[in-house]
């Protein structure tokens, strides 16, 4: 039935290609209908992991390559929330893509992306995983840069990184395949664990080949530059998919492979170096997550483009998730998975509101915007709620997962990791407020006076996302039950919940009481507000300007909006050790071009030169043979 | 060079300089015809009377004359030189010394506002200190400040009587 779904998707994607430009909203309706179908099916199939399906492609040269799918609780959970968010973004993009120029191509590749998204999460064997992984790499590449010259520069790092990681994974799979003889994930994971005993050298090679994919796809420390580039240029609604969903694939695969491995080593630490009873390798990964989150936070504080800011905040959140994941405590892992879901939700909300602002104002530089809240209240509310939950502030969904991450880290005694996470989450609050202020509050520039709210069809996903954030914030137990089912599948101890009261080794919280406390105090504030004398509405420019009438020194509302270099002095603190990793990759690229250029001129040298080189190289081979 | 040598030096280097008077051992004044004002000032600037302290004017209503006063100062000689010229009161106009000293534009703008002197070459005629002024320049002798104050600010006095 899954294969029927995928096959049907492929047909639809080709069908959608032939819809004429005039009815292009029809193309996007087909698109969102298909995602709704996948969403509906994932819910109806449910979590029973006995559901198995196979589709035999070909069997040649003693390889029997077939796409087979199985519903694992983890896969099901990831499919559920990714398809839900994709569905919301597709509703948003029906209206947005009315007059895009290359939208026929975007639609086609986005279709393939959806198909491979479900395929990847429900894949049962490594070969299917690799096929869909490759498809995602290629299609997301083409959606980000459909024919715009400028965006090729932005995407080339993303493209190179994803190819490197997919082919390293390919070699890893091959080594595992040679060992187990089949591609199926369960057997290979067990073999992978046993590999560490008998041939550690190759085990490390396979581990590295899988870890590189994780590092690249979830944009951890050395590879943290591609999201900012890719997001700035990607079409706006796709960047919410890019940072909401595509960045999670690396994480999914790591959970498949490395969590069972590290848990196994945790129980039987035969000859592994253990650092406060977790393997050294997972300790390094946790630290890489922490470092990424700190670096990404400070980069986000400096960025002036709102999409770059959101991209860096995604990288920071991925940093939290990796740290929590590799702290290997039950709360840590549950918190990581819960934070992935929460992060997907509030990040899609942030990106959709940014896309709405860009749809209306065609402007991404934050200091040129301002005062959008007065004109676009719904977008402002979504952005506000998304910021509250992104900063982990209690009534909304961000805080539950952040609290669980803290419980996980503290209960397994990681003082400095918790400090790093705490530093980056306060930093998150800094740049998120900056975005809220410079885009939505402050002074509305004159040129945006006639900006209207986005059409209703674009507002539906915003309402749904707001509802999601609030409901998960108040009643997290529904999602935690799902996560518990995932934890049991990896036989990690579950989180005990007694109707909305979550107990952890350190302390318990009851999110309903938290919400009650907040509403109670809000009512108290409202009563006080009514006691005071009624307030009078005043024009935006009527502010305290030390007695000088603004009209005198021709002050326009645009000049009066303070948003450029919001944390200027704070940034100067880090001037001394500011290394630009993009500069580092550019230098590598230049070096490669240089070497290539050297060889190229070498080729087109004079005729006499060729003969000398020919003879010389021949002699060199003999010498080389002699040395060997 | 003390003051006497300075006075000698100026007397025999320049013609068209009327009464040179030394006010006290640190100050002395000269009066010059209107036409020669520019080259005298530029000469004085070269012989290190570097600083133009002030430009102001005095309204001699009886002689129908307005006296334009330039006060120069020299750090080297520690002497203050007051250069005076007399111009006609009806259409008072004099060459602007904007390109000798940058600051002169501001002083000339102020003197123009308060005395109505038209400085040729300095077209910056915007009001500087007075607010929304429509009358004749206030520091002219024929301007009756009390009457002005009573008419515009003194409304309460009339109600009292």
């Amino acid at each position, binding site marked *: 039935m899954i294969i029927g779904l995928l096959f049907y998707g492929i047909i639809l994607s080709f069908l959608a290609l032939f819809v004429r430009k005039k009815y292009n909203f029809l193309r996007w309706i087909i698109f969102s209908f298909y995602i709704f179908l996948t969403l509906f099916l994932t819910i109806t199939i449910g979590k029973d992991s006995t559901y198995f399906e196979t589709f035999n492609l070909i069997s040649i040269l003693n390889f029997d390559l077939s796409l087979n799918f199985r519903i694992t609780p983890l896969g099901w959970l990831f499919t559920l929330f990714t398809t839900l968010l994709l569905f919301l973004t597709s509703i948003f993009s029906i209206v947005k893509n009315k007059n895009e120029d290359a939208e026929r191509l975007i639609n086609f590749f986005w279709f393939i992306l959806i198909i491979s998204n479900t395929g990847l999460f429900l894949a049962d064997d490594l070969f299917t995983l690799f096929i869909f992984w490759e498809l995602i790499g290629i299609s997301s590449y083409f959606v980000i840069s459909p024919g715009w010259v400028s965006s090729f520069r932005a995407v080339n790092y993303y493209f190179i990184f994803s190819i490197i990681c997919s082919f390293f994974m390919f070699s890893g799979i091959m080594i595992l395949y040679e060992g187990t003889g089949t591609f199926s994930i369960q057997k290979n994971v067990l073999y992978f664990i046993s590999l560490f005993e008998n041939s550690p050298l190759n085990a490390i090679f396979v581990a590295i080949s899988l870890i590189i994919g994780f590092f690249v796809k979830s944009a951890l420390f050395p590879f943290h530059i591609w999201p900012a580039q890719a997001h700035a240029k990607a079409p706006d609604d796709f960047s919410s998919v890019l940072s909401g969903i595509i960045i999670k694939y690396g994480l999914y695969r790591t959970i498949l492979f490395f969590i069972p491995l590290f848990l196994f080593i945790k129980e039987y630490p035969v000859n592994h170096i253990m650092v406060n009873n977790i393997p050294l390798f997972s300790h390094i990964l946790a630290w890489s997550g922490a470092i990424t989150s700190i670096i990404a936070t400070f980069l986000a504080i400096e960025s002036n483009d709102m999409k770059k800011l959101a991209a860096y905040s995604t990288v920071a959140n991925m940093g939290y998730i990796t740290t929590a994941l590799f702290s290997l405590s039950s709360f840590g892992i549950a918190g990581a998975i819960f934070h992935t879901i929460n992060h997907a939700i509030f990040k899609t909300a942030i990106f959709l509101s940014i896309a709405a602002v860009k749809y209306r104002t065609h402007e991404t530089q934050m200091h040129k915007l301002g005062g959008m809240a007065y004109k676009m209240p719904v977008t402002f509310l979504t952005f506000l709620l998304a910021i509250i939950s992104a900063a982990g502030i209690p*009534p909304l969904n961000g805080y539950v997962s952040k609290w669980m991450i803290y419980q996980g880290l503290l209960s397994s005694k990681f003082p400095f990791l918790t400090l790093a996470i705490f530093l980056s989450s306060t930093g998150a609050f800094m740049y998120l407020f900056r975005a809220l202020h410079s885009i939505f509050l402050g002074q509305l520039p004159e040129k945006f006076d006639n900006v209207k709210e986005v059409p209703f069809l674009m507002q539906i996903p915003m309402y749904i996302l707001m509802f999601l954030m609030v409901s998960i914030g108040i009643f997290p137990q529904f999602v935690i039950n799902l996560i518990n089912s995932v934890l049991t599948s990896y036989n990690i101890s579950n989180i005990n919940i007694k109707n909305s009261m979550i107990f952890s080794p350190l302390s318990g919280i009851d999110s309903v009481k938290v919400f009650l406390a907040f509403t109670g105090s809000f009512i108290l504030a409202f009563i006080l507000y009514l006691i005071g*004398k009624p307030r009078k509405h005043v024009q935006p420019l009527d502010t305290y300007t030390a007695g000088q009438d603004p009209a005198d020194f021709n002050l326009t509302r645009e000049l009066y909006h303070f948003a450029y270099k919001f944390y200027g002095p704070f940034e100067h603190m880090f001037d001394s050790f500011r290394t630009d990793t993009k500069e580092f990759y550019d230098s590598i690229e230049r070096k490669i071009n240089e070497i290539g250029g050297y060889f190229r001129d070498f080729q087109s040298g004079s005729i006499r030169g060729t003969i000398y080189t020919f003879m010389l190289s021949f002699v060199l081979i003999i010498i080389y043979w002699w040395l060997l | 060079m003390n003051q006497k040598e300075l006075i000698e030096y100026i007397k025999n280097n320049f013609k068209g300089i009327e009464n040179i008077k030394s006010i006290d051992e640190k100050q002395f004044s000269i009066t010059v015809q209107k036409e020669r004002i520019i080259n005298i000032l530029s000469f004085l600037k070269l012989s290190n009377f570097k600083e133009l302290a002030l430009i102001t004017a005095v309204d001699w209503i009886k002689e129908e004359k307005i006296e334009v006063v330039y006060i120069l100062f020299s750090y080297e000689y520690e002497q203050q030189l007051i250069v005076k010229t007399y111009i006609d009161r009806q259409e008072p106009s004099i060459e602007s010394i904007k390109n000798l000293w940058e600051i002169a534009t501001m002083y000339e703008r102020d003197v123009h506002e308060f005395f109505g002197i038209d400085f040729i070459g300095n077209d910056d005629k915007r009001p500087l200190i007075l607010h929304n002024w429509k009358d004749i320049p206030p520091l002219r002798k024929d301007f009756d400040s009390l009457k002005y104050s009573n008419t515009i600010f003194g409304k309460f006095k009339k109600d009292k009587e």
Partner: protein
Amino acid sequence: MMNNYIVRFLIGSLTSIILGLLYMGIGRKFIARIRRCYAGPFYQSFIDVIKLFSKHSISHHWIMDFGIMMGFSGIIATVIFLPIGNFYVFPDMKGNLIIIMYFMTIGYLGMAMGVSASGNPNSPIGIGRALALMIGYEIPFALAVILLIFANGSSLLYNIIQTQQGSIYNWNLLKYPFAFIGTIIALQGMLGEQPFDAMIAPAEIASGPMVELSGKFLGFGFLQHASQIFLETGIITAMFLGGGTIIGFFTKQLFLYLLTLSIASVFPRFRFEDGVKFFWTIPTSFVLFQLILFLIKR
């Protein structure tokens, strides 16, 4: 059960407001005494608040009203989770430290959103300074929190207080003196007192965020500051001075507040980036030293 919570909620919030204002009044008299003059009666801040609520006010947009209210309610909601003496509003959630730390940010976010909707550039400059300072003093405070959680194996203030019962010698103040010093300096930043009050610098940015707050909005600002004093001093008494019975708890809070005021009245103002640098070097090294000592000992 429902009205029981409402009553407990009212007790919790009103005590924080009243006592907060009381501390402010006593504080003002204390500072006046240092300056050799007699400030108004100790109930002066009550009068100020009532006067403010009696004045008319202006607002630039409904977001400004919503923001100020949210700010105030955020702080009140945090106080709900604070152990006042040995009274807890929610008996089964006895003062979870991490929740308190995150709830405080609602107060900041609400106030920040409200004032930045006012359109005056002074307020976002002030808020930017406040947030940058926040990332400064959060580090030593977080380190102290981590240290105590490791020491007591639980992040509930209730357990932290239990371990400090009995005589004065087993107060955390004496067990971890350096951590206490670091936290006191962090408290100085949290309350926005003199060395770190770049955010509401009246001379430079016309009292920063509060520039457009008139009448009852300024009243909300006052109440928020008052309950913030109560909250922050309350947390530190619970963490380090073993919050005793109701009276003991209040006197310790007052002692802490007057300590910060005495520091405040003798120090000029930091530029906020130097403030952040200061926070990341001196108090953090104190608490770090204590943490390392603790880790070695364990």
